């Protein structure tokens, strides 16, 4: 996890476009929050591989959101149950339930539905927020760290060079 974090920081500092990084995080959120062996994760992984989405951001997002998914599972269950038992949507769910592909997707499972609904709802805001934060980091934070005395001191020491080389 720590090595992933270092890689992520390097990505943040790299030339990769912010949208690539934030999309990676967002896709990692979908795969991390929802149950692993769900059918909707196939298009998510497809998008990850097909489009130039940052893999390190995806892996970090996946790990981070998998961790908090355990805590949020009861909430996802409640949300999923509320969506699936919504009377106005009953006809839609019934029609989907009688389709083999949708049945395989297990959309009628409360945690699947709840976690997917939350992750889809949070997808675009996370991408937008990610973009903003990455730009802010690059423009302001990174410059500040580079110009700080501590950073200059660490960079000049042999120990710092060895540590970076080991991590690479």
């Amino acid at each position, binding site marked *: 996890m720590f090595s992933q974090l270092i890689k992520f920081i390097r990505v943040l500092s790299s030339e990769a*476009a912010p949208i690539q990084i934030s999309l990676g995080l967002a896709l990692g959120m979908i795969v991390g929050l929802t149950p692993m062996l769900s059918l909707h994760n196939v298009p998510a*992984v*497809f998008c*990850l*591989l*097909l*489009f*130039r989405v940052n893999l390190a951001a995806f892996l970090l997002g996946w790990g981070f959101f998998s961790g908090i998914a*355990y805590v949020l*599972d*009861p909430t*996802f*269950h409640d949300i*999923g*149950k509320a969506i*699936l*038992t919504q009377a106005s949507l*009953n006809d839609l*769910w*019934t029609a989907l*339930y*009688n389709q*083999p*592909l949708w*049945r*395989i997707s*297990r959309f*009628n*499972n*409360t*945690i*699947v539905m*709840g976690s997917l609904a939350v992750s889809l709802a949070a997808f675009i805001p996370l991408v937008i927020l990610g973009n903003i934060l990455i730009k802010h980091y690059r423009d302001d934070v990174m410059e500040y760290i580079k110009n700080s005395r501590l950073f200059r001191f660490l960079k000049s020491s042999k120990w710092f060079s060895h540590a970076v080389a080991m991590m690479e």
Partner: protein
Amino acid sequence: MKIIRWPGLIAFILIFALLVGGGVLFAESIVQSMIESTLTDINGAKVDIASVQINYSPVSLSVNDIQIADAARPMTNSIQIARARFAMSGGDLLLGKLIIDDMSLTGIRVDTPRKRSGALPKTKKTQAPVDDEKTLFDFDLPDIDLPDVGEALKQEPLKSEKLVDELNLDVDKTRQQWKATRDDIKDQKRWDSLKARYEKIRRDFKGDFAQKLDAIKDAKQLRDDLKKEMERIRNARRQFNTDSERLENAFKAVKAAPKQDIERIKQKYKLDNLNTGNIAELLFGAQAAEYLSLARTWYRRIKPYIESDEEEQEAVRFEGEDIVFREFNPKPGFYVRKVAIDAEIPRGRFAGSMTDLSSDQSVSKKPTRFKLAGQDMRHRDSEELSGEFNYVKKDRGYSQFEYRIKAYQLRDFDISKSKKLALNMSSGLMDLSLSSRIQSGRINGNTDIDFSKVNFKAGTRSSGAVTRMLATAFSDIHRFNIEATFGGNLKDLDMDLKSDLDNQIGHQFKAQIDARKRQFEQDLKARIDKKLREPLAELEQKKQKLDRIKAEVDDKERELKLQLADLDDKIKQEKEIQKQKLRDKKKQKKDELKQKLLKKLKL
């Protein structure tokens, strides 16, 4: 900026192909694991499968060597199936439904040994019921010896003897009392005195007027005294009547007492309870109970497969809850339209079919039915098993079975291994018909079994006469029938067994027993009569003496009555005479007066 990452697309395709290829390659292992897991959960003990073959067009499955362990006996398979083949509907499979049109099960065997224990790690082992040979084949017979009459009389005091003694004392006492009363009544001195007075009165009646008057007075006095004597006699008679009635009742009791003594002795030695009304139940009840226990065991084994329904899923932590929506074409999770069954059992082959096997009959709306018939069966002409599991309406669900065997050849069939009566059917033919129904935890059923061309071998180590007679009686029986009805809770069944064996044995056994009973009774009666003959004769003589005393008193009464009547006549007669004389005198005087008056007038 390039948007598409072509290497990524290729990687995705490769991964996808690997997954699909791997799935196809390992599908059989996965399916095998799933079937083992599902059936193990249902069975409560391990289910092992040797291999699985999948065909994709059409979608079909072939499962080889299914071993279903018996939860109660983990080293034994309750059922082992050599091969199960079935074609499935692919579309329904994607919907999570296993819908099979045709299934065949071949090479079914039961109670085969396992190499490894089939017990699940966390389940408790249930003990298989231990056959207690003693309890199965031992039973109580009314093993009674007919006793020796002399011994019986020695041990049993006779009530009749006691009654005779008591009556003797009573009669003696009564006779004493009666004698005293008679003697008092017949007091000669008093009677002589009365007679003398009577004679005087008679003489006086012939005397003059004054004497006659005295005679009348004396007669009245004598009459009163005689009446007193009469009263004395009447009192004596009342006493005699009371005593006679008491003694008569006591005599009747004494005469009835020997019969009561005989009945009491018979009762003590249970001679009247010797009957064969329950022999069939004694002999065959244990066997029937054993077969019922076996049927109960098999029902317990198949119950999870027939009475289960798809339970509502509860939410499991981290797994969520599957919300079920209405299906346009509802089908149960598991349904087999027809199963062809071919089973090898030690006595031959059983082949047949089962239809509409479903995990939830309330959805499939059809009961499960099966029919199996024996083929190339050893030691019998035919054997059939059929039935129905109808749980379409769960609250009124039931299971029904019919079982028939024709001409089953019995050889050395042990009916009883009891030391009291060992009974073996060395040969015979059996036709059996059984039907039963299980509903709401209760079973009801009946069975009809005909035995023909039967040869029994009976032996006993008992010295009891009854048991030895019973053993002999069986040798003449070659045909009999048993009808049994059973019902009640599955854990606690009541069974009622009837058989014409009871009658058949009864006729022979009963004749022997009756003869011995009659002989015993006759001997007993003769001995008791002999014992009581003299005392009863003596009592009879005493009774006659009492009757004589009574007769004497009656004679005295008659004599007294005559005397009283005579005295009354005499008094009455004399009174009339006196009255007439008085009237005559009056008339004479009247006439004299008249004459005087006339004379005076004529003057």
